[in-house]
Protein backbone atom coordinates (compact mmCIF):
# COMPACT_ATOMS: atom_id res chain seq x y z
CA UNK A 1 0.00 0.00 0.00
CA UNK A 2 1.22 3.50 -0.56
CA UNK A 3 -0.67 6.03 1.50
CA UNK A 4 1.12 7.95 4.23
CA UNK A 5 -0.95 9.48 7.00
CA UNK A 6 -0.24 12.03 9.68
CA UNK A 7 0.67 10.35 12.94
CA UNK A 8 -0.72 11.16 16.39
CA UNK A 9 1.50 11.29 19.45
CA UNK A 10 2.14 9.87 22.91
CA UNK A 11 5.00 10.29 25.30
CA UNK A 12 7.80 7.75 24.95
CA UNK A 13 7.65 6.79 28.63
CA UNK A 14 4.00 5.90 28.39
CA UNK A 15 4.50 3.88 25.25
CA UNK A 16 7.59 2.11 26.57
CA UNK A 17 5.70 1.00 29.70
CA UNK A 18 2.87 -0.31 27.56
CA UNK A 19 5.21 -2.08 25.18
CA UNK A 20 7.39 -3.83 27.77
CA UNK A 21 5.18 -6.92 28.25
CA UNK A 22 4.79 -7.20 24.51
CA UNK A 23 8.54 -7.07 24.00
CA UNK A 24 9.08 -9.75 26.63
CA UNK A 25 6.48 -12.02 25.00
CA UNK A 26 8.07 -11.43 21.62
CA UNK A 27 11.51 -12.34 22.92
CA UNK A 28 10.08 -15.58 24.33
CA UNK A 29 8.30 -16.25 21.05
CA UNK A 30 11.46 -15.76 18.98
CA UNK A 31 13.50 -17.88 21.39
CA UNK A 32 10.97 -20.71 21.10
CA UNK A 33 11.08 -20.44 17.34
CA UNK A 34 14.85 -20.62 17.29
CA UNK A 35 14.80 -23.67 19.57
CA UNK A 36 12.19 -25.32 17.33
CA UNK A 37 14.26 -24.57 14.28
CA UNK A 38 17.46 -25.95 15.70
CA UNK A 39 15.86 -29.13 17.01
CA UNK A 40 13.38 -29.76 14.19
CA UNK A 41 13.81 -32.33 11.43
CA UNK A 42 15.89 -31.35 8.41
CA UNK A 43 14.69 -31.82 4.89
CA UNK A 44 16.18 -34.52 2.71
CA UNK A 45 18.39 -34.17 -0.31
CA UNK A 46 15.54 -33.99 -2.81
CA UNK A 47 14.93 -30.27 -2.56
CA UNK A 48 18.63 -29.46 -2.78
CA UNK A 49 19.11 -31.64 -5.85
CA UNK A 50 16.12 -30.10 -7.60
CA UNK A 51 17.54 -26.66 -6.91
CA UNK A 52 20.87 -27.81 -8.27
CA UNK A 53 19.18 -29.20 -11.37
CA UNK A 54 17.83 -25.80 -12.26
CA UNK A 55 21.01 -24.06 -11.27
CA UNK A 56 19.69 -22.10 -8.35
CA UNK A 57 21.02 -21.83 -4.87
CA UNK A 58 18.75 -22.64 -2.00
CA UNK A 59 17.30 -19.54 -0.38
CA UNK A 60 15.06 -21.23 2.14
CA UNK A 61 11.54 -19.99 2.51
CA UNK A 62 10.54 -16.44 1.85
CA UNK A 63 8.76 -15.02 4.84
CA UNK A 64 6.82 -11.80 4.93
CA UNK A 65 5.61 -9.53 2.20
CA UNK A 66 9.07 -8.29 1.39
CA UNK A 67 10.89 -11.47 2.16
CA UNK A 68 14.02 -12.68 0.56
CA UNK A 69 17.71 -12.31 1.11
CA UNK A 70 19.60 -9.14 0.28
CA UNK A 71 19.71 -8.09 -3.33
CA UNK A 72 23.04 -9.00 -4.76
CA UNK A 73 23.51 -12.15 -2.76
CA UNK A 74 23.53 -15.34 -4.79
CA UNK A 75 20.58 -16.63 -2.81
CA UNK A 76 18.31 -13.95 -4.26
CA UNK A 77 17.39 -16.21 -7.17
CA UNK A 78 16.92 -19.31 -5.05
CA UNK A 79 13.75 -21.37 -5.00
CA UNK A 80 11.64 -21.29 -1.90
CA UNK A 81 10.02 -24.33 -0.34
CA UNK A 82 6.72 -23.82 -2.15
CA UNK A 83 8.35 -23.49 -5.57
CA UNK A 84 10.37 -26.67 -5.06
CA UNK A 85 7.26 -28.53 -3.97
CA UNK A 86 5.38 -27.53 -7.09
CA UNK A 87 8.36 -28.33 -9.33
CA UNK A 88 8.42 -31.80 -7.79
CA UNK A 89 4.64 -32.09 -8.34
CA UNK A 90 5.19 -31.26 -12.03
CA UNK A 91 8.01 -33.82 -12.21
CA UNK A 92 5.67 -36.49 -10.79
CA UNK A 93 3.16 -35.82 -13.58
CA UNK A 94 5.90 -35.85 -16.21
CA UNK A 95 7.29 -39.13 -14.81
CA UNK A 96 4.10 -41.04 -15.65
CA UNK A 97 3.16 -39.06 -18.77
CA UNK A 98 2.53 -41.02 -21.94
CA UNK A 99 3.46 -38.05 -24.12
CA UNK A 100 6.24 -35.49 -23.96
CA UNK A 101 3.84 -32.75 -22.96
CA UNK A 102 5.07 -30.14 -20.49
CA UNK A 103 3.41 -29.85 -17.09
CA UNK A 104 3.57 -26.24 -15.93
CA UNK A 105 2.52 -24.73 -12.62
CA UNK A 106 2.32 -21.16 -11.37
CA UNK A 107 3.43 -20.27 -7.85
CA UNK A 108 2.24 -16.96 -6.42
CA UNK A 109 4.70 -15.56 -3.84
CA UNK A 110 3.79 -14.19 -0.42
CA UNK A 111 4.77 -10.70 -1.52
CA UNK A 112 1.56 -9.59 -3.23
CA UNK A 113 3.44 -7.31 -5.61
CA UNK A 114 6.00 -9.83 -6.82
CA UNK A 115 5.85 -11.78 -10.06
CA UNK A 116 4.63 -15.38 -9.81
CA UNK A 117 7.18 -18.10 -10.44
CA UNK A 118 6.66 -20.51 -13.36
CA UNK A 119 7.83 -24.09 -12.82
CA UNK A 120 7.63 -26.81 -15.47
CA UNK A 121 8.65 -30.41 -16.09
CA UNK A 122 8.90 -32.23 -19.42
CA UNK A 123 9.84 -35.88 -20.04
CA UNK A 124 13.33 -35.93 -21.55
CA UNK A 125 13.42 -39.64 -22.32
CA UNK A 126 11.49 -42.89 -22.01
CA UNK A 127 10.80 -44.70 -18.75
CA UNK A 128 13.47 -47.35 -18.15
CA UNK A 129 13.60 -50.28 -15.79
CA UNK A 130 16.96 -50.71 -14.10
CA UNK A 131 18.63 -53.90 -12.91
CA UNK A 132 17.44 -53.35 -9.33
CA UNK A 133 13.84 -53.15 -10.54
CA UNK A 134 13.50 -49.41 -10.12
CA UNK A 135 11.88 -47.37 -12.87
CA UNK A 136 13.71 -44.25 -13.95
CA UNK A 137 13.07 -41.37 -16.32
CA UNK A 138 14.97 -38.23 -17.26
CA UNK A 139 12.88 -35.11 -16.71
CA UNK A 140 13.73 -31.63 -17.93
CA UNK A 141 12.96 -29.06 -15.22
CA UNK A 142 12.49 -25.38 -15.89
CA UNK A 143 11.97 -22.42 -13.58
CA UNK A 144 11.24 -18.81 -14.48
CA UNK A 145 11.66 -16.58 -11.44
CA UNK A 146 12.21 -12.85 -11.32
CA UNK A 147 12.45 -12.69 -15.11
CA UNK A 148 15.19 -15.33 -15.30
CA UNK A 149 14.64 -18.76 -16.79
CA UNK A 150 16.89 -21.66 -15.91
CA UNK A 151 16.58 -25.26 -16.99
CA UNK A 152 18.21 -28.55 -16.10
CA UNK A 153 17.62 -32.26 -16.49
CA UNK A 154 17.32 -34.66 -13.61
CA UNK A 155 16.75 -38.42 -13.66
CA UNK A 156 14.04 -39.49 -11.24
CA UNK A 157 13.67 -43.08 -10.04
CA UNK A 158 10.92 -45.01 -8.32
CA UNK A 159 11.91 -48.07 -6.29
CA UNK A 160 9.86 -51.26 -6.76
CA UNK A 161 6.68 -51.12 -4.70
CA UNK A 162 7.26 -47.51 -3.72
CA UNK A 163 5.30 -44.43 -4.71
CA UNK A 164 8.22 -42.14 -3.82
CA UNK A 165 9.98 -40.34 -6.64
CA UNK A 166 13.63 -39.61 -5.97
CA UNK A 167 16.19 -37.78 -8.07
CA UNK A 168 19.09 -39.97 -9.16
CA UNK A 169 21.52 -37.89 -11.17
CA UNK A 170 21.95 -34.30 -12.29
CA UNK A 171 22.94 -33.63 -15.90
Amino acid at each position, binding site marked *: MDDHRDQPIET*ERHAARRMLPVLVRTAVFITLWLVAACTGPRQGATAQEISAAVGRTDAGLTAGPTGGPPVGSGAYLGLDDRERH*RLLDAARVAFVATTNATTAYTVVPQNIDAEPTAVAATPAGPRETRADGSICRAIQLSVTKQEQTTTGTLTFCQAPGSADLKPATTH
Partner: protein
Amino acid sequence: MPAPARAQGLGEALKQGLYDDATLTFHVRSYYFDRTNPSPPNNVAWAGGGWVGYETGWFFDALRFGVVGYTSQPFAAPPGTDGTVLLAPGQLGYTVLGQAYGKFKLWGQEFTGYRQLINQPEVNPQDNRMTPNTFEAYTLGGQLGDFSYFAGYVAQEKTRNETQFRNMAQVAGAPDGVSEGMVLGGLTFAPDDSFKARLSSYHVPNILTSGYADAAKIFSLTDDIDLRVSGQFMVQGSTGGHLLTGQAFSTWVGGVDLDLLWGPVTLTALYTQTGSAAAYRTPYGTWAGYSSMIVRDFNRANEGAAVVGIKFDLAAVKLPAFALTTNVAFGNGALDAATGAPLSTNNEYDFTLDYLFANSAVDWPKWLRPLWIRGRAALVDQYQNGALTTVRDYRVILNYEWKFGGKKH
Protein backbone atom coordinates in the same frame (compact mmCIF):
# COMPACT_ATOMS: atom_id res chain seq x y z
CA MET B 1 33.05 -22.55 -15.90
CA PRO B 2 35.31 -19.68 -17.05
CA ALA B 3 38.93 -19.61 -15.95
CA PRO B 4 39.62 -17.29 -13.01
CA ALA B 5 40.11 -13.78 -14.28
CA ARG B 6 43.11 -13.31 -12.00
CA ALA B 7 45.11 -15.66 -14.22
CA GLN B 8 44.29 -13.65 -17.34
CA GLY B 9 45.79 -10.56 -18.87
CA LEU B 10 44.15 -7.18 -18.47
CA GLY B 11 42.74 -7.24 -22.01
CA GLU B 12 41.17 -10.64 -21.54
CA ALA B 13 39.76 -9.67 -18.13
CA LEU B 14 38.19 -6.52 -19.61
CA LYS B 15 36.66 -8.50 -22.47
CA GLN B 16 35.26 -11.02 -20.06
CA GLY B 17 33.88 -8.39 -17.70
CA LEU B 18 32.52 -5.95 -20.28
CA TYR B 19 31.14 -8.49 -22.72
CA ASP B 20 31.34 -12.21 -21.96
CA ASP B 21 29.86 -12.05 -18.47
CA ALA B 22 27.98 -8.77 -18.84
CA THR B 23 24.19 -8.48 -19.02
CA LEU B 24 22.06 -5.95 -20.85
CA THR B 25 18.43 -5.84 -19.69
CA PHE B 26 15.41 -4.23 -21.34
CA HIS B 27 12.28 -4.32 -19.22
CA VAL B 28 9.05 -3.03 -20.76
CA ARG B 29 6.07 -2.26 -18.54
CA SER B 30 2.59 -1.00 -19.31
CA TYR B 31 0.37 -0.01 -16.40
CA TYR B 32 -3.27 1.05 -16.40
CA PHE B 33 -4.49 2.39 -13.04
CA ASP B 34 -8.06 3.43 -12.29
CA ARG B 35 -9.11 4.34 -8.74
CA THR B 36 -12.51 5.77 -7.89
CA ASN B 37 -12.44 7.60 -4.58
CA PRO B 38 -15.42 8.43 -2.34
CA SER B 39 -15.08 12.04 -3.45
CA PRO B 40 -13.28 13.58 -6.44
CA PRO B 41 -10.70 13.61 -7.80
CA ASN B 42 -10.33 10.04 -8.99
CA ASN B 43 -6.93 8.72 -10.01
CA VAL B 44 -6.61 7.41 -13.56
CA ALA B 45 -3.67 6.99 -15.93
CA TRP B 46 -2.17 4.60 -18.44
CA ALA B 47 1.61 4.71 -18.58
CA GLY B 48 4.31 2.87 -20.48
CA GLY B 49 8.01 2.59 -19.93
CA GLY B 50 10.30 0.39 -17.88
CA TRP B 51 14.03 0.29 -17.59
CA VAL B 52 17.30 -0.42 -19.37
CA GLY B 53 20.17 -1.83 -17.38
CA TYR B 54 23.73 -2.90 -17.97
CA GLU B 55 25.79 -4.86 -15.48
CA THR B 56 29.36 -5.96 -16.07
CA GLY B 57 30.73 -9.30 -15.04
CA TRP B 58 33.20 -9.53 -12.19
CA PHE B 59 36.60 -8.05 -12.96
CA PHE B 60 39.33 -10.13 -11.33
CA ASP B 61 36.52 -11.85 -9.43
CA ALA B 62 36.31 -8.76 -7.22
CA LEU B 63 34.78 -5.73 -8.97
CA ARG B 64 31.63 -5.15 -10.98
CA PHE B 65 29.61 -2.14 -12.07
CA GLY B 66 26.02 -1.54 -13.12
CA VAL B 67 23.67 1.20 -14.26
CA VAL B 68 19.88 1.18 -14.67
CA GLY B 69 17.86 3.97 -16.23
CA TYR B 70 14.11 4.10 -15.60
CA THR B 71 11.35 5.84 -17.48
CA SER B 72 7.58 6.25 -17.35
CA GLN B 73 5.66 8.08 -20.06
CA PRO B 74 1.95 8.89 -20.30
CA PHE B 75 -0.13 6.97 -22.83
CA ALA B 76 -3.41 8.31 -21.51
CA ALA B 77 -3.36 10.65 -18.53
CA PRO B 78 -6.27 13.04 -18.09
CA PRO B 79 -5.11 16.19 -16.28
CA GLY B 80 -7.92 16.00 -13.72
CA THR B 81 -7.06 12.49 -12.47
CA ASP B 82 -3.52 12.93 -11.17
CA GLY B 83 -2.27 10.92 -8.18
CA THR B 84 -1.80 7.43 -9.56
CA VAL B 85 1.96 7.53 -8.80
CA LEU B 86 2.52 6.04 -12.26
CA LEU B 87 3.74 9.41 -13.50
CA ALA B 88 5.37 12.51 -12.10
CA PRO B 89 3.00 15.10 -10.55
CA GLY B 90 0.92 16.76 -13.24
CA GLN B 91 0.63 13.46 -15.13
CA LEU B 92 4.05 14.09 -16.67
CA GLY B 93 6.53 11.52 -17.91
CA TYR B 94 9.92 11.16 -16.25
CA THR B 95 13.28 9.52 -16.77
CA VAL B 96 15.86 8.91 -14.05
CA LEU B 97 19.16 7.14 -13.52
CA GLY B 98 17.94 5.00 -10.63
CA GLN B 99 20.90 2.71 -10.21
CA ALA B 100 24.61 3.38 -10.71
CA TYR B 101 26.77 1.23 -8.52
CA GLY B 102 30.08 -0.40 -8.02
CA LYS B 103 30.43 -3.67 -6.16
CA PHE B 104 33.49 -5.01 -4.41
CA LYS B 105 33.56 -8.67 -3.44
CA LEU B 106 35.96 -10.26 -1.01
CA TRP B 107 35.64 -13.69 0.64
CA GLY B 108 32.04 -13.89 -0.51
CA GLN B 109 31.04 -10.61 1.18
CA GLU B 110 29.82 -7.83 -1.13
CA PHE B 111 30.17 -4.08 -0.66
CA THR B 112 27.93 -1.97 -2.91
CA GLY B 113 28.35 1.77 -3.28
CA TYR B 114 26.08 4.55 -4.62
CA ARG B 115 22.68 4.11 -6.32
CA GLN B 116 21.19 0.67 -5.80
CA LEU B 117 18.15 -1.41 -4.91
CA ILE B 118 17.72 -2.45 -1.28
CA ASN B 119 15.31 -5.20 -0.27
CA GLN B 120 14.86 -5.21 3.49
CA PRO B 121 11.60 -5.38 5.45
CA GLU B 122 11.31 -1.61 6.01
CA VAL B 123 13.51 -0.33 3.18
CA ASN B 124 12.57 -1.87 -0.13
CA PRO B 125 11.78 -1.25 -3.84
CA GLN B 126 7.97 -1.08 -3.41
CA ASP B 127 7.81 -2.04 -7.07
CA ASN B 128 4.04 -1.72 -7.49
CA ARG B 129 3.89 1.14 -9.98
CA MET B 130 6.05 1.92 -13.02
CA THR B 131 9.46 2.15 -11.38
CA PRO B 132 10.82 1.10 -7.97
CA ASN B 133 12.33 2.98 -5.04
CA THR B 134 16.10 3.12 -5.33
CA PHE B 135 18.65 4.32 -2.80
CA GLU B 136 21.97 6.14 -2.64
CA ALA B 137 23.65 3.91 -0.13
CA TYR B 138 26.82 2.15 0.95
CA THR B 139 26.02 -1.39 1.98
CA LEU B 140 27.66 -4.64 2.91
CA GLY B 141 25.98 -8.03 2.60
CA GLY B 142 26.98 -11.64 2.76
CA GLN B 143 26.53 -15.01 4.32
CA LEU B 144 28.22 -16.58 7.33
CA GLY B 145 27.11 -20.17 7.86
CA ASP B 146 23.37 -20.28 8.48
CA PHE B 147 23.29 -16.50 8.86
CA SER B 148 23.15 -13.84 6.20
CA TYR B 149 23.54 -10.19 7.01
CA PHE B 150 22.98 -6.80 5.44
CA ALA B 151 24.17 -3.48 6.85
CA GLY B 152 24.88 -0.03 5.64
CA TYR B 153 24.29 3.69 5.45
CA VAL B 154 21.52 5.06 3.24
CA ALA B 155 22.09 8.71 2.38
CA GLN B 156 19.15 9.32 0.05
CA GLU B 157 16.14 7.70 -1.57
CA LYS B 158 14.35 8.19 -4.86
CA THR B 159 10.75 7.15 -4.32
CA ARG B 160 8.80 5.45 -7.08
CA ASN B 161 7.78 8.37 -9.29
CA GLU B 162 10.42 10.89 -8.28
CA THR B 163 13.45 11.90 -10.28
CA GLN B 164 15.39 13.44 -7.40
CA PHE B 165 17.08 11.59 -4.57
CA ARG B 166 16.14 13.14 -1.20
CA ASN B 167 17.66 12.60 2.22
CA MET B 168 15.89 10.13 4.50
CA ALA B 169 14.49 12.80 6.81
CA GLN B 170 12.77 14.52 3.90
CA VAL B 171 11.42 11.23 2.56
CA ALA B 172 9.89 10.57 5.99
CA GLY B 173 8.17 13.94 5.85
CA ALA B 174 10.42 16.10 8.06
CA PRO B 175 10.23 19.90 7.76
CA ASP B 176 12.32 21.61 5.10
CA GLY B 177 15.92 22.02 6.08
CA VAL B 178 16.12 18.86 8.17
CA SER B 179 18.60 16.43 6.65
CA GLU B 180 19.52 12.98 7.92
CA GLY B 181 20.68 9.64 6.56
CA MET B 182 19.79 6.15 7.76
CA VAL B 183 21.88 3.46 9.40
CA LEU B 184 20.40 0.02 8.95
CA GLY B 185 21.33 -3.55 9.73
CA GLY B 186 19.64 -6.90 9.27
CA LEU B 187 20.33 -10.51 10.13
CA THR B 188 18.65 -13.60 8.67
CA PHE B 189 18.91 -17.07 10.20
CA ALA B 190 17.93 -19.93 7.90
CA PRO B 191 19.37 -23.21 9.20
CA ASP B 192 17.37 -25.32 6.77
CA ASP B 193 14.66 -25.27 4.19
CA SER B 194 11.79 -25.10 6.63
CA PHE B 195 12.75 -22.27 8.95
CA LYS B 196 13.71 -18.66 8.61
CA ALA B 197 14.01 -15.83 11.12
CA ARG B 198 14.91 -12.21 10.50
CA LEU B 199 15.89 -9.29 12.70
CA SER B 200 16.55 -5.80 11.43
CA SER B 201 16.93 -2.27 12.68
CA TYR B 202 16.64 1.15 11.02
CA HIS B 203 17.78 4.43 12.53
CA VAL B 204 17.38 7.94 11.12
CA PRO B 205 18.79 10.30 13.80
CA ASN B 206 16.31 12.83 15.18
CA ILE B 207 13.58 11.40 12.93
CA LEU B 208 12.58 7.76 13.18
CA THR B 209 13.89 4.51 14.60
CA SER B 210 12.42 1.05 13.95
CA GLY B 211 13.07 -2.57 14.80
CA TYR B 212 11.62 -5.56 12.93
CA ALA B 213 11.58 -9.30 13.67
CA ASP B 214 9.83 -12.21 12.03
CA ALA B 215 10.06 -15.97 11.91
CA ALA B 216 8.40 -18.66 9.81
CA LYS B 217 8.41 -22.43 10.15
CA ILE B 218 6.94 -25.06 7.82
CA PHE B 219 5.46 -28.22 9.30
CA SER B 220 4.65 -31.21 7.08
CA LEU B 221 1.19 -32.45 8.01
CA THR B 222 1.03 -35.14 5.32
CA ASP B 223 3.02 -35.91 2.17
CA ASP B 224 0.95 -33.35 0.31
CA ILE B 225 -0.03 -30.79 2.93
CA ASP B 226 2.22 -28.36 4.77
CA LEU B 227 1.42 -25.78 7.39
CA ARG B 228 3.48 -22.60 7.50
CA VAL B 229 3.32 -20.70 10.78
CA SER B 230 4.73 -17.17 10.76
CA GLY B 231 4.95 -14.42 13.34
CA GLN B 232 6.18 -10.84 13.16
CA PHE B 233 6.74 -7.94 15.50
CA MET B 234 7.90 -4.43 14.82
CA VAL B 235 8.40 -1.31 16.94
CA GLN B 236 8.85 2.27 15.84
CA GLY B 237 9.27 5.67 17.43
CA SER B 238 10.61 9.16 17.06
CA THR B 239 14.13 9.72 18.28
CA GLY B 240 16.68 12.36 19.27
CA GLY B 241 15.22 15.82 18.76
CA HIS B 242 11.90 14.40 17.50
CA LEU B 243 12.16 16.59 14.42
CA LEU B 244 9.63 14.66 12.34
CA THR B 245 6.53 15.98 14.08
CA GLY B 246 8.09 18.10 16.80
CA GLN B 247 6.86 15.68 19.46
CA ALA B 248 7.70 12.18 20.67
CA PHE B 249 5.69 9.20 19.46
CA SER B 250 6.04 5.45 19.37
CA THR B 251 4.05 2.40 18.37
CA TRP B 252 4.26 -1.31 17.55
CA VAL B 253 2.68 -3.97 15.33
CA GLY B 254 2.41 -7.71 15.96
CA GLY B 255 1.13 -10.33 13.54
CA VAL B 256 0.50 -14.06 13.18
CA ASP B 257 0.02 -15.80 9.84
CA LEU B 258 -1.07 -19.40 9.18
CA ASP B 259 -0.80 -20.79 5.65
CA LEU B 260 -2.07 -24.20 4.64
CA LEU B 261 -0.16 -25.32 1.56
CA TRP B 262 -1.73 -28.05 -0.54
CA GLY B 263 -0.69 -28.59 -4.18
CA PRO B 264 -2.15 -25.75 -6.23
CA VAL B 265 -3.90 -24.12 -3.27
CA THR B 266 -2.62 -21.97 -0.43
CA LEU B 267 -5.11 -20.95 2.24
CA THR B 268 -4.15 -18.02 4.45
CA ALA B 269 -5.50 -16.75 7.75
CA LEU B 270 -3.72 -13.98 9.61
CA TYR B 271 -4.17 -11.27 12.18
CA THR B 272 -2.23 -8.10 12.90
CA GLN B 273 -2.59 -5.57 15.68
CA THR B 274 -1.15 -2.06 15.82
CA GLY B 275 -0.44 -0.24 19.08
CA SER B 276 -2.83 2.51 20.14
CA ALA B 277 -0.20 5.23 20.56
CA ALA B 278 0.37 5.94 16.88
CA ALA B 279 -0.02 4.55 13.40
CA TYR B 280 2.95 2.70 11.93
CA ARG B 281 4.86 4.80 9.41
CA THR B 282 6.16 3.29 6.15
CA PRO B 283 8.04 6.03 4.29
CA TYR B 284 10.81 3.85 2.84
CA GLY B 285 8.95 1.10 1.03
CA THR B 286 6.07 -1.35 1.16
CA TRP B 287 4.89 -1.99 4.69
CA ALA B 288 6.21 -5.34 5.92
CA GLY B 289 3.06 -6.11 7.91
CA TYR B 290 1.15 -9.24 6.95
CA SER B 291 -2.04 -7.20 6.44
CA SER B 292 -0.61 -4.97 3.73
CA MET B 293 -3.28 -5.07 1.02
CA ILE B 294 -3.48 -3.58 -2.47
CA VAL B 295 -5.04 -0.26 -1.41
CA ARG B 296 -4.74 -0.02 2.39
CA ASP B 297 -2.23 -0.98 5.04
CA PHE B 298 -4.12 -1.92 8.16
CA ASN B 299 -1.67 -0.17 10.47
CA ARG B 300 -3.52 2.86 11.87
CA ALA B 301 -3.33 3.42 15.64
CA ASN B 302 -5.08 0.63 17.57
CA GLU B 303 -6.17 -1.07 14.34
CA GLY B 304 -6.60 -4.81 14.26
CA ALA B 305 -7.00 -6.68 11.00
CA ALA B 306 -8.08 -10.23 10.25
CA VAL B 307 -7.29 -11.43 6.75
CA VAL B 308 -8.33 -14.60 4.98
CA GLY B 309 -7.11 -15.48 1.53
CA ILE B 310 -6.54 -18.09 -1.10
CA LYS B 311 -3.95 -18.52 -3.82
CA PHE B 312 -5.05 -20.90 -6.55
CA ASP B 313 -2.98 -22.17 -9.47
CA LEU B 314 -5.68 -22.63 -12.09
CA ALA B 315 -3.65 -25.32 -13.86
CA ALA B 316 -5.59 -27.60 -11.50
CA VAL B 317 -8.77 -26.79 -13.45
CA LYS B 318 -7.16 -27.07 -16.88
CA LEU B 319 -6.27 -23.40 -17.11
CA PRO B 320 -2.47 -23.53 -16.98
CA ALA B 321 -0.68 -20.17 -16.79
CA PHE B 322 -3.50 -18.56 -14.81
CA ALA B 323 -3.26 -17.97 -11.06
CA LEU B 324 -5.90 -16.36 -8.88
CA THR B 325 -5.17 -14.65 -5.59
CA THR B 326 -7.87 -13.28 -3.34
CA ASN B 327 -7.54 -11.69 0.07
CA VAL B 328 -10.22 -10.20 2.27
CA ALA B 329 -9.25 -7.97 5.19
CA PHE B 330 -11.56 -6.98 8.06
CA GLY B 331 -10.27 -4.05 10.06
CA ASN B 332 -11.45 -2.84 13.45
CA GLY B 333 -10.66 -0.45 16.26
CA ALA B 334 -8.70 2.24 14.42
CA LEU B 335 -8.35 5.48 16.40
CA ASP B 336 -6.99 8.93 15.96
CA ALA B 337 -4.24 8.59 18.56
CA ALA B 338 -4.13 12.32 19.25
CA THR B 339 -7.81 12.69 20.11
CA GLY B 340 -8.93 9.13 20.77
CA ALA B 341 -11.72 9.57 18.22
CA PRO B 342 -12.65 6.48 16.27
CA LEU B 343 -11.61 6.35 12.62
CA SER B 344 -13.41 4.49 9.86
CA THR B 345 -13.70 0.73 10.03
CA ASN B 346 -12.23 -0.54 6.78
CA ASN B 347 -12.77 -3.81 4.97
CA GLU B 348 -10.83 -4.57 1.79
CA TYR B 349 -11.53 -7.20 -0.88
CA ASP B 350 -8.62 -7.90 -3.27
CA PHE B 351 -8.52 -10.00 -6.42
CA THR B 352 -5.46 -10.63 -8.60
CA LEU B 353 -5.43 -12.71 -11.78
CA ASP B 354 -2.03 -13.51 -13.30
CA TYR B 355 -1.29 -14.96 -16.71
CA LEU B 356 2.22 -16.17 -17.45
CA PHE B 357 2.84 -16.82 -21.13
CA ALA B 358 5.74 -19.08 -20.16
CA ASN B 359 3.26 -21.52 -18.62
CA SER B 360 0.55 -21.38 -21.26
CA ALA B 361 -0.91 -24.45 -22.92
CA VAL B 362 -1.17 -22.32 -26.05
CA ASP B 363 1.90 -22.69 -28.24
CA TRP B 364 2.84 -19.00 -28.20
CA PRO B 365 5.91 -17.92 -30.18
CA LYS B 366 9.07 -18.23 -28.11
CA TRP B 367 9.58 -14.46 -28.07
CA LEU B 368 6.28 -14.03 -26.24
CA ARG B 369 7.13 -16.36 -23.39
CA PRO B 370 8.61 -13.66 -21.08
CA LEU B 371 5.29 -11.77 -21.12
CA TRP B 372 3.36 -11.57 -17.85
CA ILE B 373 -0.08 -9.97 -17.61
CA ARG B 374 -1.70 -9.12 -14.28
CA GLY B 375 -5.20 -7.83 -13.62
CA ARG B 376 -6.18 -6.52 -10.19
CA ALA B 377 -9.37 -5.34 -8.61
CA ALA B 378 -9.71 -4.02 -5.08
CA LEU B 379 -12.70 -2.74 -3.19
CA VAL B 380 -12.42 -0.88 0.11
CA ASP B 381 -15.52 -0.35 2.25
CA GLN B 382 -15.12 2.39 4.86
CA TYR B 383 -17.73 2.61 7.62
CA GLN B 384 -17.88 5.67 9.82
CA ASN B 385 -20.73 7.26 11.78
CA GLY B 386 -23.21 4.91 10.15
CA ALA B 387 -22.16 5.93 6.65
CA LEU B 388 -20.46 3.76 4.05
CA THR B 389 -18.00 5.09 1.51
CA THR B 390 -16.18 2.96 -1.03
CA VAL B 391 -12.89 3.01 -2.92
CA ARG B 392 -12.74 1.00 -6.14
CA ASP B 393 -9.35 0.25 -7.65
CA TYR B 394 -8.65 -1.53 -10.98
CA ARG B 395 -5.26 -2.21 -12.56
CA VAL B 396 -3.92 -3.96 -15.65
CA ILE B 397 -0.16 -4.48 -15.76
CA LEU B 398 2.04 -5.95 -18.50
CA ASN B 399 5.68 -6.85 -17.99
CA TYR B 400 8.11 -8.08 -20.61
CA GLU B 401 11.85 -8.47 -20.20
CA TRP B 402 14.71 -9.21 -22.58
CA LYS B 403 18.13 -10.09 -21.28
CA PHE B 404 21.16 -10.06 -23.54
CA GLY B 405 24.59 -11.25 -22.62
CA GLY B 406 27.94 -12.10 -24.05
CA LYS B 407 29.26 -15.64 -24.35
CA LYS B 408 27.96 -16.62 -20.94
CA HIS B 409 24.29 -16.25 -21.98
